[in-house]
């Protein structure tokens, strides 16, 4: 018979208590903030609690996996993801709000692009690990293809937010894998140079849509409404905020999407600049821990994977806060670990599970 202490040690063996504490902090912030954002709707709060519990279970499972299991999963996951993405193009795809992102699998609808958030960097890291000894330019080219194929399919859906996040996670793998500066700078220059040509290829309505992304005040009641109301919520929060449950933008329905993509505006309005600094601090803490785990990771694969997970998490947060505060166009990225939603919570927790696994299994791999 194990006593309680042993049980606890057994349970916690593969978890990083520092990271776990920070994630617990996020869970608390998410529930408290959702209560306000949903106007005291307990269904929403309890739903999110369920998402969090599922997320932590997934985290625990992944954290307890051996790393070679993860590596073995890379190819099947990627292939499965690609197949599902292709199936979205068939009549099995479900259209909603003018975008076909979901797949009807009979019992439920799933969003294959979410799976790819994990599968793409995993596949790329696996590929680099596989060819570690003999890396040539060709390998970087193949890895880039592995990245661009799913992104092409996801942009077509269209889903700009997910595309950006997957692109970022793949780019971080390429960057950390040592992609030469010349190629990176060359591609960037080529992209900038080809922009006017691409612009001339666009239809008027497409140009209009892009301009609207850049200047929301052009369409204050339409697409620009989200950004403007978000900025009003953030700006009117001031230094100390309007107080918990007292945000007028939030509670009088001016803020759209306030339990999901615009939940940061709720936080900003009610807790002000002080609240923003605290929340940023929490993100910085998690990212810092991620960097330490990455720096200490033992294999090429784990280094690339840990680095990509950490940087993608940061990108997630940056894009969301940037879009709510009006420095980035509205692209539909939730605030990581806080916005309401099971899928994004699960994907993120899987990532953190891998980080913990990388952290705790490093010695095992080495031997």
């Amino acid at each position, binding site marked *: 018979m194990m006593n309680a202490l042993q049980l606890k040690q057994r349970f916690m063996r593969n978890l990083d208590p520092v990271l776990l504490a920070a994630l617990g902090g996020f869970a608390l912030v998410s529930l408290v903030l959702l209560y306000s954002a949903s106007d005291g709707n307990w269904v929403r709060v309890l739903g999110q609690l369920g998402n969090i519990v599922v997320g932590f279970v997934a985290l625990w499972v992944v954290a307890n996996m051996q790393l070679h299991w993860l590596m073995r999963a890379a190819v099947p996951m990627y292939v499965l993801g690609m197949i599902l993405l292709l199936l979205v193009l068939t009549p099995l795809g479900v259209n909603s709000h003018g975008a076909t992102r979901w797949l009807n699998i009979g019992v439920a609808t799933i969003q294959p692009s979410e799976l790819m958030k994990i599968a793409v960097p995993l596949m790329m890291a696996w590929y680099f690990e596989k060819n570690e000894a003999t890396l040539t330019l060709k390998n970087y080219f193949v890895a880039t293809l592995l990245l661009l194929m799913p992104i092409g399919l996801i942009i077509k859906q269209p889903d700009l937010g997910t595309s950006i996040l997957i692109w970022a996670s793949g780019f*971080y793998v390429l*960057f*950390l894998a*040592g992609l030469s500066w010349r190629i990176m700078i060359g591609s960037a220059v080529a992209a900038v140079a080809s922009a006017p040509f691409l612009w001339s290829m666009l239809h008027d309505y497409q140009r209009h849509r892009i301009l609207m992304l850049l200047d929301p005040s052009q369409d204050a009641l339409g697409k620009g409404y989200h950004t403007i*109301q978000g*900025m*009003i*919520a*953030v*700006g*009117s*929060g*001031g*230094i100390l905020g309007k107080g918990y449950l007292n945000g*007028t*933008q939030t509670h*009088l*329905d*001016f803020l759209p999407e306030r339990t999901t993509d615009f939940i940061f505006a709720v936080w*900003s309005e009610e807790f*002000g*600049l002080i609240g*923003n*600094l605290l929340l*940023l601090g929490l993100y*910085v803490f998690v*990212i810092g821990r991620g*960097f330490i785990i*990455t*720096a200490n990771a033992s294999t*090429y694969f784990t*280094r690339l994977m840990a*680095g990509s997970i950490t*940087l993608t998490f*940061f990108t997630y947060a*940056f894009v969301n*806060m*940037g879009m709510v*505060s*009006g*420095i980035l166009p509205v692209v539909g990225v939730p605030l990581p670990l806080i916005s309401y939603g099971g899928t994004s919570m699960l994907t993120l927790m899987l990532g953190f599970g891998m980080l913990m696994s990388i952290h705790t299994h490093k010695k095992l791999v080495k031997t």
Partner: protein
Amino acid sequence: MNRNVELKNHQREIFYFRLRLVLSLGFVAVMLFILLARFFYLQIFRHDYFHTLGESNRIYVVPIVPNRGLLMDRNGVVMAQNYSGYTLEVTPSKVSNMDALITDLSKLVEITPKDIKRFQKLLSERQALETLPIRSQLSDDEVARVAAQRFRFPGVEIKARLFREYPFTDVTSHLIGYVGRINQNDIDQLEDDDSASNYLGSDYIGKTGIEQSYEQELHGTTGFEQVEVDASGRAVRVLSRTSPQSGNTLVLTLDAKLQQVAEEAFGDYRGALVAIDPANGEVLAFISKPGYDPSLFIDGIDTETWDELNNSPDTPLNNRALRGQYPPGSTFKPFMALTGLHFGTRSPSRTISDPGYYMLPGSRHQYRDWKAGGHGSVDMFKSIVISCDTYYYGLATELGIDNIYSYLSRFGFGKKTGIDMEGESSGLLPSAEWKMKRYKQAWYAGDTVSVGIGQGYNLVTPLQLAFATATLANDGVAFQPHLIKEIRRSRGEPLLTESRQLFDLQIDPEHMKLVKSAMEAVTKPGGTAAGAGAGAPYRMAGKTGTAQVVAMKQGEKYDAKRLSEYNRDHAWFIAFAPADKPRIALAVLAENGGHGGTTAAPIARKVLDYYLLGKLPKPLQTVSEKAGAEND
């Protein structure tokens, strides 16, 4: 060896990896700094701006329109009031197909062609975002029917509002006037007066009559409610409220019953009557006949009815009492007599011999007396009693136009009385200077002759003549004619209008006595108004007059039967009573009424009888009976 190289490579690899990791860290730091800078910018530097935007998002200021002040007569009889009712209103900017909407609506509530015409007129004059009434005074049934179907009609709403009501309708239309919808002119005017903010939410403003001239007193002060609204514009709660302050109640100097008696006394005649209390200038009755139904104008009048009113030969929209200008005719004679006495031109006892005409020295042109063959020997007293024209032809010639002008202008002839109503006409008291200016012609002796009997260039308004009569009745002491006796404020003490003495002509009491006794004799047997004065149990003084509408040729005889109705002479009568201590002075004009003594004087008698004795010529219908009778 091989292993060594591998190890070296491995370390180099780790080194390069960590270098890139540090670069990533730098990237993260830069991005975080950008976010922080953005938060500082939004939440500190632009906080005030966004705070304002946020507040204007959620706070709406809703004006609360004050209740318009009531109008009542000197005895408390209500002459303008408000009642609540429902209107069906349309916001044209929210409606794409107006014709289809009207067709659909008319299946639910009755919408007459007149309503539609009126609505279309409003539509052509509307301001952006305005809502316009298409039907007023909906029944409870109609309200329920529309409310149940409202979802089908975006831009249509039922509004509960206060309506203005004028219980005396056409009897007081020219006095009280009416309110109407605020138009662009009104808005410009309000903006000039800096009072536009007090009219937020108000739909109506006084357009004519007392409603117009006392607009500031009647409107009241608009209240405001700060309301918190959600994104869909629904009010969530009231944040603060400044109550509106109702308009002030105006107590008129008018006697509503006297007004009714006077109006009915006219019978079918068109005309005007103004009665004034000589001791203080209070206007007791103010009639211009025909009147009109002021309620037609409140929500805009339809073009057809407007044309009908505007083109009617009876000109019901013309305020005759205030703006109608007529030759005073023989009512001018008592004033001429006072002028003659003032300048000592004629002593009362001097008699002239009247052959039935007057000729200027050295001229063969005959100025005829109204009585062929003349009145024989006539002194000043008799000249008034029998209204001898020849006497005044001569008197005017002897006085000269300059004396006539200088003295009679002091009575207020040719000048506005300054009554508290807009649009008054000034009449005309001719002078040599005026004629030169107007016609570029010298004044001829012949011009003076006809001035003497109140013809020629002379023009007076009924109000002016009533005012002059009141001044005469009050021995030359004139008080400002006014319509408002008291302003009852919704807060604070009532404000009583003080009688304001305008001037004192300091007329010799002997002169006064002569003219007044002659005017009293006018209503006695032998006088021109003997019939109207017969049996009066009080001392009644008056003077008849006849104003020519078409001029007679030399030698032509006036024959009423041969003239079309509208070309017949106007009948005048001025009066005051009791003669020794006048309580009321008035001027009556019966258009195309012929002789003053036969048509105008009896009207005056009925008014005096009621005012002095409380005697009704016949039982008056109450207001509600009258309204009921009209609907039958």
